[in-house]
């Protein structure tokens, strides 16, 4: 069965620090897409970053970057220069057969 594991239920860091959220997944597919979404208290699920499994280069979006290790089925998210607005639940997911398979999420708190 396809699964996504986020081993850190909650993390907190000081503003401006760098934080890394971990994610491992399991799929038998060779070509797939991986995602990180954030869900602030407002509930809206917001796309943070996307990685295509056939690309070796790690995706980056401004302060957000990933470390994608395909053989290890690992997909961690690094947030640099963290800001108060980064406080949210962060979900790792991959897509297979049209559906997103989700982890349980990591609650990230940025402290002033």
């Amino acid at each position: 069965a396809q699964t996504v594991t986020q081993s850190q239920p909650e993390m907190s860091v000081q503003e401006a620090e760098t934080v890394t959220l971990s994610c491992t997944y399991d799929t038998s597919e060779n070509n797939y897409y991986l995602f990180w979404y954030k869900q602030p208290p407002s509930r809206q699920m917001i796309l943070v970053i996307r990685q295509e499994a056939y690309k070796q280069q790690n995706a980056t979006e401004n302060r957000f970057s990933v470390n994608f290790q395909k053989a290890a089925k690992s997909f961690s998210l690094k947030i640099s220069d963290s800001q108060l607005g980064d406080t949210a639940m962060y979900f790792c997911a991959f897509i297979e057969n049209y559906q997103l398979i989700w982890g349980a999420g990591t609650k990230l708190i940025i402290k002033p």
Partner: protein
Amino acid sequence: DAGVTQSPTHLIKTRGQQVTLRCSPKSGHDTVSWYQQALGQGPQFIFQYYEEEERQRGNFPDRFSGHQFPNYSSELNVNALLLGDSALYLCASSFPLSGGPQETQYFGPGTRLLVL
């Protein structure tokens, strides 16, 4: 460029009742997916609609049904509501990428359903 919209934002129903939730996809998107997110958990896939047909379905009972209209908007219907149906219902829209089924899904603000 309008994003994904959902209505209503909140809804309170009693057990046994029926509910209809609505979703309009992001402009240019033709595919709509529905997810159920229980409190403190990740979302669970309910189903996806494309070309007015249910293309894929998750592990949800037949009480959950849907529809997609010619303008790509969609409805989620839940019959015979149970207490356990209380959740945030998320709608996501997407467009098929060339060469494969993978697609980036963009989400609406959700509908919070409370069943009493």
